[in-house]
């Protein structure tokens, strides 16, 4: 599903922040992407999300080499992914309902066809009473749940989550982890970037460890 071969990334003329990254992610797999702060976890997720282009190497996504593809082809690939950003990336002028339904609207679906689906998901993540609120009035945890709901609403083939439990209490973090595991069981490949050892200890998943710009696969 995702294959990186000898991928390197540098910003401008600076040193390579990621070097010789080689790994693959299989369908229905579950893995953590971990490493110390500043190791490049978010950068690697951005490469997978195609919002950054590598300076060398090959990235194969859903069976296509995406390193030289045009914008529209990248958009088609992104529609098969769900992403939870560390900083949530919610649109402040839209309500929670509108933010969560954004990927479906982008796909061109009629609002009547997804309304009940979105409302149900919002109830499920505990935001049923906040669906008319705009992000600036939400707590960090609520924003995080809204961001997770937005990633899940498209039933993605690949879920990329950047510190998805960073703003929630341990109990809710465990519940969200169960949710991601259920998604994996139902066919979604899950990549969770985190440095929360307690979270990672809760299941025996493969770990992709980033350190000094290099990636080591553990398990």
């Amino acid at each position, binding site marked *: 599903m995702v294959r990186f071969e000898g991928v390197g990334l540098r910003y401008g003329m600076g040193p390579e922040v990621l070097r010789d990254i080689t790994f693959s992610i299989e369908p229905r797999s579950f893995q953590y992407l971990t490493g110390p702060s500043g190791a490049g976890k978010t950068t690697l997720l951005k490469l997978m*999300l195609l*919002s950054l282009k590598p300076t060398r190497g090959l990235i194969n996504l859903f069976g296509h080499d995406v390193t030289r593809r045009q*914008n*529209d082809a990248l*958009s*088609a690939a*992104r*529609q098969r*992914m769900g*992403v939870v*950003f560390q900083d949530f*990336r*919610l*649109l*402040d*002028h*839209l*309500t929670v*309902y*509108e933010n969560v339904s*954004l*990927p479906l*609207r*982008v*796909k061109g679906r*009629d*609002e009547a*066809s997804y*309304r*009940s*689906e979105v*409302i*149900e998901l919002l*109830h*499920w*993540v*505990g935001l*049923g009473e906040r*669906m*008319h609120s705009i992000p600036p009035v939400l707590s960090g945890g609520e924003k995080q*749940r809204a961001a997770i709901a*937005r990633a*899940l609403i*498209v*039933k993605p083939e690949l879920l990329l989550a950047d510190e998805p439990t960073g703003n929630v209490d341990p*109990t*809710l973090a465990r*519940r*969200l982890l*169960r*949710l991601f595991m*259920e*998604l994996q*069981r*139902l*066919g979604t490949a899950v990549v969770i970037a985190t440095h929360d050892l307690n979270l990672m200890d809760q299941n025996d998943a493969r770990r992709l460890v980033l350190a000094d710009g290099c990636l080591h696969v553990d398990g």
Partner: protein
Amino acid sequence: MSTAEKLVRRVRGVLLVARARAWPLWQAVRQGAMSGVRSATGQGPTMPEFPRLPSGLKREQPLIPVDSAASRALVAVIAILTFLAALAGGAAHMVATASSEWRSAISNEMTVQIKPDPRRNIEDDIARAARIFRGAPGVAEVRIVPRAESDRLLEPWLGAGLQLAELPVPRLLVVTISRSSRPDVEALRQSLRREAPTASLDDHRLWVGRLSTMAKTLILAGVVVVLLITLAAGLAVAFATRGAMAGSHDSVEVLHLVGANDAFIAREFQGRFLKLGLEGGAIGGLSALVVTVVLGWISLSWSSGPGADQLKALFGAFEIGWTGYLIVISIAALVALIAGLVSRLTVQRHLRQMA
């Protein structure tokens, strides 16, 4: 069954199939996760199986945040530019109509001027000239302008109440040309030279040519003004779009990351600027129509004044007719369309640069 009905039925079928395929997956996710975690918040599965839809749900909000102050300013700019363009277009149309009337009136007539000569009897020359034209093919009517009428033509220059009998005032014949066939002007001129040597024939060709050139210049100037103003409107929209894109950088990035392609994002901007363009175009076009109607009324109230005849002769009646109204509305619509199109092109270019 019509093609439209077939299409609707097909789309409905596709939607039902898609929903039927998607629903079990979602239910499985829901039930699977719920069995372990009940709900993500730990409050238990308290929601109803089919949740009630909130009546006040906001729908189809613009995905790009709207800067209302900038939008109002852009609407005002587009309205002013449309107003000016519509007035220029209406004026060009008025000149075109008036010049067409002049040309058709003048080109259907010829004038014979007979100069007084002490060695000749002018009345005999007038009679001979009239005879030449009355018998010629292509001539519909010949009218001898009476002496009193010729004198009146001089009044604007010499003033009224003068005795002009002693002055050598030329006499005129107005020859109306038939609509079905044209006379042989050169043959008529030669006959006139033989029968009445002091007479000259003016077929107004020079005058018509000058009038045409002047009218065409005015119309061209009007069209150029409309084009320049439309260009200015396009540039204003382009700058506004770039400003809006700079202010919406985060929204554009989020849209990209959830799978929106460049065309989708460009449509979002295009829709918004098309709406602003329509708003500004409607205000500007309507204002131009109101001004035209008001000026028409004012010109009617002036029609009893001394300069009214000359003004009417030069510009025609101060009204633009249905064609003129259509031109004004078309200009407003054109400005709105250009606003939408320019914003789309600007966004696409900006997105390519971002990529």
